[in-house]
């Protein structure tokens, strides 16, 4: 049995599945003052009366870190930056004490300016004197050569031993210095509170005699053991949209192109599944005001929901991007899409007579019939969804690309299915699907899609390897590790891919997910001949490999309709 729990912004849901069907599910309002309590409440509800020994895995998805960052409930982190040449460091504004120190490495990891220890000692003392207990040390191109970051950390450790220091190359090896600074800062800020949460969860599981491994869901839809997540708490932000997408995916046909449309009270979230794989955003997530390196699903939010206010100005129906309370049929003030759907018997919430009342009122004001009004509202809402879907595909097609084949290839994919999740899905998705010429899927159990998504999510491992044979070293983007390769031009692409594969297994082992790595796919492999003075002196390889992004199981028959 597999357990998935999602502690979301509004609801907490949990699901128990045997890999073929859903055995138990629960859903209740999240207690914001105590997320752990919400989590355990959901857990206890689904395991009640079950054989604990049959549980093989528990996966959690939580807004803990998202909330901490949003509410700024984290300790201050000072920055120690070694930017070297480029943008004026005054542009690095992260709203915290920032020390710019000497030292620089270039794009190939060569040291171009040494660090200066008195500089660093002074910075450390000043940081301490200003009551900071944590610092993030980040150098430009530190993923190509981490020695300066390590040296700076060592000097700080010696001079200011009670300063906790996080290093940029350990957090992300991807290019983009400002994002690495932000991600390192947020990691340093949330590590302790996250560790505390993990400890409580582990204690709670133990006290319930649950010995199955516990995982946490990341924003990119992959899971990692709680223990391994300790050094990357920021990656657990935005796991909600990932959970809902994976849940909807497991309830729809395998391997197809689908749009997951999650219609909430005030917003509708869209996510894409292309050839059976969820689409990741091309850039890291934006966490509050910070652009980060955290990989997440490409999610588009539209201000449309069951509670959106509908206005009738000059006979024109408009769905406003705002909410003024619950729908009329549930005791609110104005007409909403939910009222229209209730009137047309497409949803089963609220009071139908109230819905009829408000439709009649509008019909009188506009000289129309209530039936017509309700249908126009539904039509309008569908159009908003359809336009947003079209827009999302267009944005995906217009993502910058850096290779000839990517520009030449004519991509114009339109979905096979629209998978509707959320209260108003039943009333809106069939019509939206008709307009797009694809199939509507309103899966059963959609109300616990998030928890189901957590339950079916799998560990994923990615390795981006960069090899520079002229200098004879490689770097692994994911963990910032650096090692040697033979110098010169003899190293082949096959050897490079083999090395990447070895590194992937090493990373998997470190994350304690090695047993999940069955097959490995090469996402891309590029070789650049380095020519100096008309002869080839080395090669640069850029290799990206990963485990296939699949889920544990598909529970849906993929049939449209509800039941």
């Amino acid at each position: 049995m597999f357990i998935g729990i999602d502690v979301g912004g509004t609801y907490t849901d949990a699901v128990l599945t045997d890999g073929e069907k859903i055995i138990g599910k629960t859903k209740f309002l999240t207690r914001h003052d105590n997320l752990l309590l919400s989590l355990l409440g959901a857990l206890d509800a689904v395991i009640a009366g079950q054989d604990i020994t049959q549980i093989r895995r528990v996966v959690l998805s939580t807004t803990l870190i998202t909330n901490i960052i949003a509410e700024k409930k984290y300790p201050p982190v000072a920055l120690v930056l070694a930017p070297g040449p480029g943008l004026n460091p005054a542009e690095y504004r992260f709203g915290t004490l920032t020390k710019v120190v000497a030292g620089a490495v270039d794009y190939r990891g060569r040291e171009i300016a040494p660090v200066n220890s008195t500089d660093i000692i002074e910075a450390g003392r000043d940081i301490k004197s200003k009551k900071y207990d944590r610092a993030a040390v980040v150098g430009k191109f530190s993923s190509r050569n981490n020695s300066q970051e390590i040296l700076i950390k060592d000097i700080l450790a010696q001079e200011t031993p009670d300063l906790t220091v996080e290093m940029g190359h350990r957090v992300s090896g991807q290019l983009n210095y400002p994002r690495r600074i932000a991600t390192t800062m947020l990691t340093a800020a949330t590590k302790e509170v996250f560790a505390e949460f993990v400890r409580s969860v582990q204690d709670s599981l133990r006290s319930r005699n649950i010995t199955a491994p516990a995982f946490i869901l990341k924003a990119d839809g992959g899971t990692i053991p709680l223990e391994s997540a300790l050094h990357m708490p920021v990656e657990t932000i935005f796991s909600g949209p990932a959970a809902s997408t994976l849940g909807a995916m497991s309830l729809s046909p395998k391997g197809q192109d689908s749009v997951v449309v999650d219609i909430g009270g005030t917003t509708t979230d869209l996510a894409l599944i292309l050839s059976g794989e969820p689409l990741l955003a091309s850039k890291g997530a934006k966490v509050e005001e910070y652009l980060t390196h955290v990989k997440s699903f490409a999610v588009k939010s539209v201000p449309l929901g069951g509670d959106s206010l509908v206005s009738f100005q000059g006979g024109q129906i408009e769905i406003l991007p705002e909410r003024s309370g619950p729908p009329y049929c549930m005791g609110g003030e104005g007409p909403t899409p939910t009222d229209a759907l209730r009137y047309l018997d497409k949803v089963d919430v609220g009071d139908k007579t109230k819905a009829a009342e408000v439709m009649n009122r509008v019909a009188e004001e506009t000289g129309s019939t209530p039936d017509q009004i309700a249908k126009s509202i539904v039509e309008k809402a569908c159009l908003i969804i359809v336009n947003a879907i079209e827009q999302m595909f267009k944005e995906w097609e217009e993502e910058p690309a850096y290779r000839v084949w990517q520009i030449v290839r004519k991509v114009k994919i339109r979905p096979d299915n629209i998978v509707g999740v959320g209260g108003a899905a039943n009333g809106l998705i069939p019509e939206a699907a008709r307009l797009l010429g694809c199939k509507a899927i309103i899966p059963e159990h959609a109300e616990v899609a998030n928890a189901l998504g957590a339950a079916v999510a799998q560990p994923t491992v990615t390795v981006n390897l960069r090899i520079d044979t002229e200098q004879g070293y490689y770097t692994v983007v994911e963990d910032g590790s650096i090692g040697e390769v033979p110098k010169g031009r003899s190293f082949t692409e096959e050897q490079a891919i083999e090395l990447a594969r070895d590194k992937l297994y090493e990373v998997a082992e470190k994350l304690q997910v090695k047993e999940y790595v069955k097959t490995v796919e090469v996402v891309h492999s590029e070789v650049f001949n380095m020519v100096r003075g008309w002869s080839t002196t080395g090669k640069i390889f850029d290799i990206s490999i990963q485990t296939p992004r699949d889920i544990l199981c598909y529970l849906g028959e993929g049939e449209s309709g509800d039941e």
Partner: protein
Amino acid sequence: MNKSDKTGLIFFPAFDWAISPTHPEREERLLYTRDQIFEEGLMDLPQIREYKPRLAEYKDIARTHFCVPGIKEQVTEAHLIAAGAALVMADALMAGDIRNGFALVRPPGHHAMKVVHGNRGFCNINNEAIMVDYLRKKYGLKKIAIIDSDVHHGDGTQDIFYHDRDVLFISFHQGGRTLFPGTGATSETGGPTAYGRTLNIPLPLGTTDEGLHFIVDRLILPILDEFKPDLIINSAGQDNHFSDPLANMSMTAQGYARFNEKLRPDIAVLEGGYAIETALPYVNTGIILAMAGLDYSHVVEPDYAPGMFSLSAVKKAEITEVVEKLWDIWKHRNDNNFEALKAKQDFWQRQKFVFYDTDGIKEHQTERLRLCRDCGGYLSIVSQAMHQTGNINNILGLSIPFQGCRVCREEAYAEYERAVKRSTFDFIYLQDRAEDLYKVHSREKGTEWEEE
């Protein structure tokens, strides 16, 4: 021009395209530039908006060039994307979505002339020229200034606009005695109807930032003030850099960035620059920051030290002399002897020899320009290209200006029909830019088609 505060950027390094594995125009060329601008996080800056390039259409190329035998034989997809990137920047600018833009793309184009028999100076088609003609056709722009800041003379761009009085072409470069393509003397000043609209600034070896800014302040900016172009284009080569392996100048990233800050180009398009590690990452970062109005003072090459380069008094005097000479040409640009010339002959004619260094092609051209008061005249080019294989191509290209008058159009069409009948050319091209219609006739196939 518009209210946007964004700088558009297309970065297209063509990581899967090379002339040959060890050629300077190879996959690796913009690799370190990629690393630098991505690590800097420039694409995330609120002042910058990144765009995806598109493929230019054949018609966009036919509007500017006579590609022999046809466009598909001269361009790869990479060329279409580099040219298309410039067009995307042009459209974004005209739509008011950006206030300026930089197409940081390869392959380059400024050595590609009007007639294209092959690759010369690493170029097949001219990205800036295609963009300028597109802007004029699609948006009706008239006056455009192109400043070529590549160390090599922009002979292709010069050739394309030599008789075009609405396009001001200024190139500064290492003097032709010591560098490919050998042209670009101050005496090349534009054809009889466009005198003074081509200005060449040959610079002495080792010219520094000081020398560059002397010509910018004393010549380029004052001339632009008087010309009042609708748009300024920077044909942005980066090989005047002190570390460039193919040239011998002494400019720096700071010099290039300040140049762009002063010039304020509406669109910059990357040209040459082959110091792929020591110059390009820094020069490109500097140009992007300068165009976006950001502080570029920290963009300093690691192997640069203040005071490394100085301009000798002799060289300074040499540059001053060039500036004075060109200023004189510019001042007298409108008192040419067009009427006297016109009284004697209907057509002005010159012979040209063009060498294609990359492909080893030798081309002989006879260029005839109808001396027309109304539209500047249609152009007729007879070209014979001898390929290394011994293959010879004879072609006739006829080009009607955008504002082509009735007489010039009729005469060009008549010349086209006569040539088709006479059957002496392998290919005949008619570029009717007034009607945006581009015809090709093949003798061998006996057919005619339009480029679309």
